[in-house]
């Protein structure tokens, strides 16, 4: 039979195809200067390894793709019935055992070759980093991420700050019922340029390694559907060089600013602690002013709120206007249904005066 057309080992064609892939990728990347969430642009070893695994596989897949599609198109064209056909039927070929063996064995060999580095990669991705690493605890809430730095006793939300060039091991779980009235659900932590994703499971601990080689801001999102506002549960990772990192730690470990008596900010601080018959901010949030230990509430820690750039699941820039709109009517800023399920930020029916004071206070928490 015509058994010439079989799979050729892909190695011989690697070079031009590699170029082709790179060209395609370049096309994909050309317009995205702002693509900090691009899995094809690894910025650290834990994103680099999967990337280096997938590229050769993609090349092999592309070879197979071209070959098979070529075969389909060629045989469609070559063996189509022509206008001048005599109407006779073609030879009734039933099969060819040798060919069957060929296209069983060759794919099996290719897959076996891919399997070895895959398994190695699985173990090296999941193992503890060899070098000294920093642990950060990640807790998935609906719908925001909380970070706790056990070495420094720091709580923060939405934006995770890490030192560049240091391996970080995330120790992750989802809200437990003791902490949060609402049931914890599964989330997934995904910052594509730093690492692949790993689910956060309530009641269990999972781990994820990541590392940024250079200072920079890296974007990510929750990648496991977690309910109403899943789309609004975003992640920012800010990698800082040593100096900035130290400054950040120093700031975070210091108590919150207490505004001077008589100022608008001080009025805001009062309201923060007491809103009369309405739920006080302090019943869910924490502003640590130096006394006692830090213990988080149901909502994000606000001690150094203004050291962050974004809020509300990192979907809004942290500025006076947005803060005010958020306090006035949270559900217009982010999909939530507090009345129904108690998840998210309630509408406290604040008056204009109260809004002014609270916003002023929050803006002072730097």
């Amino acid at each position, binding site marked *: 039979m015509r058994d010439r057309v079989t799979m050729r080992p892909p190695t011989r064609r690697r070079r031009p195809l590699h170029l082709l892939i790179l060209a395609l990728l370049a096309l994909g990347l050309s317009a995205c200067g702002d693509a900090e969430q691009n899995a094809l642009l690894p910025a650290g070893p834990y994103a680099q390894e999967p990337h280096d695994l997938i590229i050769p596989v993609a090349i092999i897949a592309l070879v197979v793709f071209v070959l098979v599609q070529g075969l389909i198109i060629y045989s469609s064209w070559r063996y189509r019935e022509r206008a001048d056909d005599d109407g006779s039927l073609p030879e009734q070929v039933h099969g060819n055992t040798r060919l069957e063996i060929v296209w069983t064995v060759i794919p099996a060999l290719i897959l076996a070759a891919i399997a070895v580095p895959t398994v190695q990669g699985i173990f090296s991705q999941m193992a503890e980093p060899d070098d000294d690493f920093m642990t950060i605890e990640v807790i998935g809430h609906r719908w925001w991420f909380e970070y706790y730095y056990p070495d420094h006793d720091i709580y923060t939300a939405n934006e995770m700050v890490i030192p560049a060039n240091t391996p970080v091991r995330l120790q992750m779980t989802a809200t437990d019922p003791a902490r949060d009235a609402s049931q914890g659900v599964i989330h997934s932590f995904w910052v594509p340029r730093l690492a692949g994703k790993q689910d956060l499971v309530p009641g269990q601990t*999972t781990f994820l390694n990541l590392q940024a080689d250079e200072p920079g801001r890296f974007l990510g999102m929750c990648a496991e559907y977690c309910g109403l506002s899943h789309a609004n549960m975003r992640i920012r990772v800010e990698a800082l060089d040593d100096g900035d990192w130290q400054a950040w730690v120093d700031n975070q470990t210091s108590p919150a600013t207490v505004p001077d008596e008589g100022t608008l900010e001080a009025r805001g601080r009062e309201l923060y602690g007491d809103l009369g018959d309405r739920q006080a901010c302090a019943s869910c949030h924490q502003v640590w002013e130096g006394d006692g230990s830090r213990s988080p509430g149901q909502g994000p820690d606000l001690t150094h709120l203004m050291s962050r750039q974004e809020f509300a699941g990192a979907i809004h820039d942290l500025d006076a206007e947005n803060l005010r709109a958020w306090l006035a009517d949270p559900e217009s800023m982010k999909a939530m249904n507090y009345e129904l399920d108690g998840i998210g930020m309630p509408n406290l029916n604040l008056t204009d005066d109260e809004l002014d004071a609270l916003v002023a206070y929050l803006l002072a928490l730097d």
Partner: protein
Amino acid sequence: MSATETEDTGTDHGHHPTAREYVQIAIVLAILTALEVSTYFFDFGRIAIPLLIILMAIKFVMVAGFFMHLRFDTKIYSRLLYTGLIFALVLYSITLAIFVFERAPSA
């Protein structure tokens, strides 16, 4: 209208146990059950659990083989039943093994 498969034709299996044989089987089953229950009252030590599993398997095969006529019927029935059983055993064993040995993805 003959069947063309290699499997035997017709369900008119050669043997049907008599009522007396059924009772004898039931007595054996009763004795095995008594043995099973005795593990609760007496300490069998480390052999208790293997023993229970073996007794369970024997009872299983006896009920299926005699009361359900599997021993005397066409093999197709056995294959259907035991395919399901083996699928269930293998799949759920793997699942439980993952829970026991592979629960948390820590190194």
